[in-house]
């Protein structure tokens, strides 16, 4: 187990470096730069800027500097927001994205597992059809449509909830983004849970448990759920990684100061250090979450060993 974790962590480093190198190359290939604006800058001013940021040095020197920064885990200052370091930005924005992401995922887990389990227990009942139909609708409804509709109803017609902005945690502001974000996940989890449960419920050990005379409740809570939730667990790792690294659409609709919002703008602004910092952070996070999921398997399913 330990060796497995160490090996996985070691592979992470060169992979992140390759990702960063390729991303850097892409940024340099993309047209435009961070300083140009509507009015063409006089050549002299452009020259000052290029000198200040070392853009007049040979490419290999610039590349070396980028790599050095990555290895020190210090990405320098953002080009657009000059007095902010990339690390500052990450420190500030990750919690925002993480809070929204965790809340949405928790909501999705609670609702999804409840309805998925009920649907599996009452297979082919009205409840089953209704919850699976809703789940299907959740998957089919793009969140950039769902979000504005929720805002229209709850903020602009009923005036119950604020339509946008970050108000810290906890606050009423996060309710709508959390619901918007969780809809799709809720739908997936419900479907995954139902499928997993159906399979487990027919398996031998559940039959044994029932034969032992355990109540249906005990069978479900103690035995079935444990096995039935494995697909949900495997889904959770990458889902959480994506949620924490920012969910661009929801952050934009609700004007949240999260990582996703920054990332899109960093791309559009060609803010090189910020793009690289976020990409590095996100890829490390995805790899670590996958690892955590693997470790979690070991606890949930005792048959899995490393």
């Amino acid at each position, binding site marked *: 187990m330990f060796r497995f974790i160490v090996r996985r962590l070691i592979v992470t480093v060169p992979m992140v470096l390759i990702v960063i190198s390729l991303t850097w190359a892409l940024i340099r290939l*993309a047209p435009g730069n961070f300083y140009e604006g*509507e009015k*063409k800058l006089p050549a002299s001013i452009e020259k000052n800027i290029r000198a200040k940021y070392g853009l007049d040095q040979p490419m290999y020197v610039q590349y070396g500097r980028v790599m050095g920064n990555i290895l020190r885990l210090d990405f320098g*200052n953002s080009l657009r927001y000059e007095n902010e370091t990339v690390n500052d930005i990450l420190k500030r924005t990750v919690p925002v994205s993480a809070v929204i992401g965790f809340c949405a995922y928790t909501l999705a887990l609670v609702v999804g597992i409840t309805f998925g389990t009920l649907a599996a227990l009452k297979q082919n009942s009205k409840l089953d059809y209704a919850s699976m139909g809703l789940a299907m609708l959740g998957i089919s409804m793009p969140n950039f449509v769902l979000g504005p509709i929720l*805002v229209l109803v709850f903020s602009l*017609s009923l005036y119950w909830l*604020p339509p946008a902005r970050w108000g810290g945690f906890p606050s009423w502001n996060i309710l709508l983004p959390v619901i918007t974000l969780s809809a799709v996940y809720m739908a997936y989890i419900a479907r995954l849970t139902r499928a997993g449960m159906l399979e487990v419920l027919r398996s031998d050990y559940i039959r044994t448990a029932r034969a032992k005379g355990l109540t249906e409740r005990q069978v479900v809570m103690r035995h079935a759920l444990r096995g039935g939730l494995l697909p949900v667990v495997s889904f959770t790792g990458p889902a959480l990684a994506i949620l924490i690294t920012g969910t661009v659409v929801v952050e934009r609709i609700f004007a949240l100061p999260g990582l996703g*919002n920054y990332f899109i703008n960093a791309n*559009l602004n060609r803010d090189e250090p910020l793009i690289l910092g976020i990409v590095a952070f996100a890829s490390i996070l995805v790899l670590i979450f996958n690892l955590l999921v693997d470790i979690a398997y070991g606890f949930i399913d005792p048959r899995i060993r490393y």
Partner: protein
Amino acid sequence: MTETKTARLLAFALAATLISAGCARRDMSNEFFGQLEPPPGQTLRYISGSEPESLDPHMSSGQPEARLDIALYEGLVEYHPKTMEPIPGVAERWEIDEDATEYVFFLRGNAKFSNGDPITAHDFVYSFRRGLKPELASRVAYMAYELKYAEAYNTHGAFVRDPKTGRFLPASETPKPAEGGGEAGAQPQPASPAPHDEESLHRSELGKKGEDAAPDTEFHRFIHTPERLVVPADEKDRAKALKADPKLAALVEGKEFVPVRAEDIGVEAVDDRTLRLTLRQPAPYFLGLIQHQFFRVIHGPTVERFGVNWTKPGNIVSSGSHMLAEHKPYNQLVVVKNPHYWDAPNVRLETIYFYPLEDNTTMMNLYKAGEVDAVYNHTVPASWLKSGVRHVKDYMDAPENVSEFYVMNTRKAPMNDVRVRKAFNMAVDKQALADWRVVVKPSYSLVPGIFLKYPRPKGDGFDPERAKQLLAEAGYKGADGKFDPKKFPTSEVEINYNTNESNRQIAEFIQAQWKQNLGITVALRNTEWKTYLPMRSKLEYKGFARAGWVGDYMDPYTYLNLYTTKEGGDNGTGWYDPKYVAKLNEANREPNEERRMALLAEAEKMLLEVQPVLPLVIPATSWMKKPYVKGLYPNPQTLHAWKFVYIEHDRSKWDQRMPDMSTADLAELGR
């Protein structure tokens, strides 16, 4: 689940949407747009546009930053809340010499920074020199190039001195290089009319201007010596420049080069309360220019102590009516009243929350829900205006200090033919465009019609017949000699614009116009902003490219000088005419306001005759404010001096319509 259930579900979803949408629609007929609950006390919540790049006034160029900087920093002059004219700021009064090259400002004695330090002329000297420092690499440093030797300093220039005599070579001695100045770091065009190289002669001329408001000083004499020759200080750059200009090379042979220092710029603190600015050439619009954030005063010791972090809360020392309390990027920026501000008794807003937001829908949602009290300009989508939103009482608009136009690639066929350019301009019914966009005005010239004293030349109007005739003359004709759209190389022309809802709608409209009026279908092409900019500036586009310019100051020159540089593609047209530049310089030398405006108009007429631009509309500042927000006026730039703004809690005094803009007297604004 069966089909019927699916259908029922869908029907339900649809019904819910329709019902809620219906509710929203009914609200529209209300007198005001959305909730009307003023925040407690003197607090304003304002949406200021995208997240400021920097709170350092030297490091930002945009309006979103300008809105914040007006609260944080004060300059020599401030914007009039209605007319945007310069009104006294840190300077109580000022005197301008008759050819508008020397400005003397008298600062008020009670002006203080937010830490209590007095604001003196030396602080302004520090600010200007720091903004121009080449190592700072400010993107807006060009705004201060009007100051004498500012460009030379900012671009690492050097004076040329004869080692034998110790005399500096004046610019007037040099053979004029090819018009436009050529390479980076080239010398500014000497525009002062009478070059004298005799110091004595110059002194006598100074004597003539002896009524000068401030005493003569050594620096003053230096700055009034004839403009010195400037060459690049860097050896490699200089070698390149000299190679390109053999005559210049011969002239500087064997001379020594003295780098231009910050101390050489035409900025002088005559005493603590007197600041003298000397310009390289006449600039009657200069007072309007220095309202810009670049010229606002910053606190030197703070900048030196904290470096790039000096604008962070806790570090920053500000000079404006308010000071920074909190800055959470992408979320909010809070400023509170500055107790040391000289006009503090008249500042009413205790706290301003600035929300950085870009998405119009989100903004209007927040506004409607009563979460913000006012928004910046262009926030009400044009398509809403026909639905009644225009008639709510909190809607604001005014003709704007902005021009929206297409530039044409004049270096590439078929747009290199002036007849073709003119034809495409004439084939757009701009009145119809303006009617569709509701609050905007049709535009036939580059300069918007907001400058009352400016005799705006009228460009070509809508005339599809003449357009076809011109195209036929340009060779796109059938056997009968009439215009034949099939002969036109449609694939060589497209409308380029950067991604934006309003740009797209206008482009679609123009496309339909040309299809209808000329029978030519021009393709549309939208590009993401940073890809778009180099494509336009390097003339890598075909046909037309969208452009817009927000005036830096209230003078036609801010538009006309867009096309005065040859380098870098002239803002995407490829058109450059030294005669046009000469005409503009002549205008700026003209002390008489009326004649100056006439000369500027002549220059614009020259521009319109060759039509490198296709004027579209003059936008309107389309925004909203709650009726309880007073002192926020629909001015042409939607830049507000926050010290005039306050929250009115007495319902009977709320604004019931757009504020009256006719009275410009400050006394009537409660001053």
